[in-house]
């Protein structure tokens, strides 16, 4: 579904991402791990078109989408969430998700300016879809709360609901469980699995090793912008390169304990 080939980006002399390749398949969860500064978020930014790649290719279903803008990528079925929460603070929770339906809606400036009856009808349909998605992520009761008033965990789930609203085939999730407590992490964990079961290719960046090992189909390990290892959770767990060269002693224990 999503194929990334020899992708790289440099900021001045710094090679933030250097020659990384991987592919993500429908219905599977691919997790990208690596220590702080490994370039995980930068990788997401390059794939989702927020940054422009210095070299390499990104393909969606065989189509080259490397230098496309994020909105063009969204139209082709790629959506993402952000590590540092990018919710629309001044809108209600439901409206946030409705924005996610942007591409699925008829958008006619003059119809909107004059508020033709069709606009109202479409609004009700969009809200209906948004409420369903909120139900799915467990925020149905917060639909008409201002998004800025949500808890941290709530915001994380709202981002997922908004990304799902675009009807993606590829979903990039940047640390969806960061800063969440055990119960919330558990919920997000189940949510991600449900998303994958729908046939969406999920690419995940996550620090919580327990979560990673439990739900990932494949794991990609990055270190300082470079490819280090890839494999199933078991393969990565057993991989001495990952242990020694990257995770260090403490991290290695964490992985084995998970």
């Amino acid at each position: 579904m999503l194929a990334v080939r020899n992708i790289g980006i440099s900021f001045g002399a710094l090679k933030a991402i250097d020659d990384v390749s991987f592919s993500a398949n429908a219905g599977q969860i691919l997790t990208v791990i690596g220590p702080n500064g490994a370039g995980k978020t930068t990788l997401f930014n390059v794939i989702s078109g927020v940054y422009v790649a210095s070299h390499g290719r990104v393909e969606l279903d065989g189509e080259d989408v490397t230098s496309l803008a994020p909105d063009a990528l969204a139209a082709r079925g790629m959506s993402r969430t952000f590590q540092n929460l990018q919710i629309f603070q001044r809108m209600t929770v439901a409206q946030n998700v409705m924005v996610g339906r942007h591409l699925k809606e008829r958008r006619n400036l003059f119809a909107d300016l004059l508020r033709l009856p069709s606009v109202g009808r479409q609004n009700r349909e969009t809200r209906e879809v948004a409420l369903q998605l909120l139900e799915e992520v467990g925020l149905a009761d917060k639909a008409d709360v201002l998004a800025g008033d949500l808890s941290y965990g709530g915001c994380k789930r709202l981002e997922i609901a908004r990304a799902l609203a675009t009807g993606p085939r590829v979903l990039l999730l940047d640390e969806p469980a960061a800063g969440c407590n055990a119960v919330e992490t558990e919920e997000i964990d189940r949510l991600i699995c449900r998303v994958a079961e729908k046939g969406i290719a999920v690419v995940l960046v996550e620090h919580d090793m327990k979560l990673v090992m439990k739900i990932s189909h494949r794991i990609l390990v990055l270190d300082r912008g470079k490819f280090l290892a890839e494999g199933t959770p078991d393969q990565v767990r057993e991989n001495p390169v990952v242990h020694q060269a990257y995770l260090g002693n403490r991290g290695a224990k964490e992985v084995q304990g998970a």
Partner: protein
Amino acid sequence: MRHWRREFSRRHIDIGGRYASMSEFLQFFFSGLTVGAVYALVALGFTLIYNASDVVNFAQGEFVMLGGMVTVFASAAGVPLPLAALIAICVAVAVGLLLYWLAIAPARGASAVSIIIITIGASIFLKGGAQVAFDKQFHKLPSFSGDAPIDVLGASILPQSFWVLGGTLAAVLILYVFLEKTLVGKAVLATSANRLAARLVGINTATIMALAFGGSAAIGAIAGILVTPITLTSYDVGTMMALKGFAAAMLGGMGNPLGAVVGGLLLGLLETLGAGYVSSTYKDGFAFVMILVILFAMPQGLLGRRTVDRV
């Protein structure tokens, strides 16, 4: 001889359909440099404040106005010119500090655009204040060392132009020495590099910002004093000065002191040569066409750095 030069120029330096001569060009060049030096000082003031506090100070031009107007009125009251100039600088510095303490510091945390609007408000306020405190007339200062033009390669240069150029050079050098060689100057540089880190190592960043406003006001006032004998002054010269100075700072790349000076000189030359060879009625337009061209073509300016949004 003159006839020959005409012929030469007609064949070789035919710009904009006019017959330009070398001396005419030099004339434009020197007046361009003079105007440019003033823009450079205003741009330098912008840069100082921008670096210390991220504030784009649209009231920068009012310091230039204050420098000129206070000197005019003090010397009209019988104060000797050097003392009048000193008083003007002190007044401008006081206004700069008050601007920081009363309007900028209390608005900490507001958006960049809100702060811009505050400084525009301050600019209108100071303009209104000058209109009440002084008057709405144009005023002139006597040239510092006479009005007899000096002949340089066929171009006649006003002695005051040398004062402007020399004064600018001196101001730039003093600022450079201050920033690079003194402890307080280094604190200013540290604050501009990273405010949080500067605070963590014990620098009082509020004081540094106040200092930047004061220093910037002094630089603006000096520009105003130096240029008033050439261009006249009135209560409302500040707005245009601020806009041009900003264009110069932008041209050089926001936040780069050297860029500000280069940008100012370039803008002055561009404006004077443009007015001389292309269209004098649109003289004021060149700065803004320049702003737009620079922003469209290279949003970081000539000497600026690229930045990347982090998400």
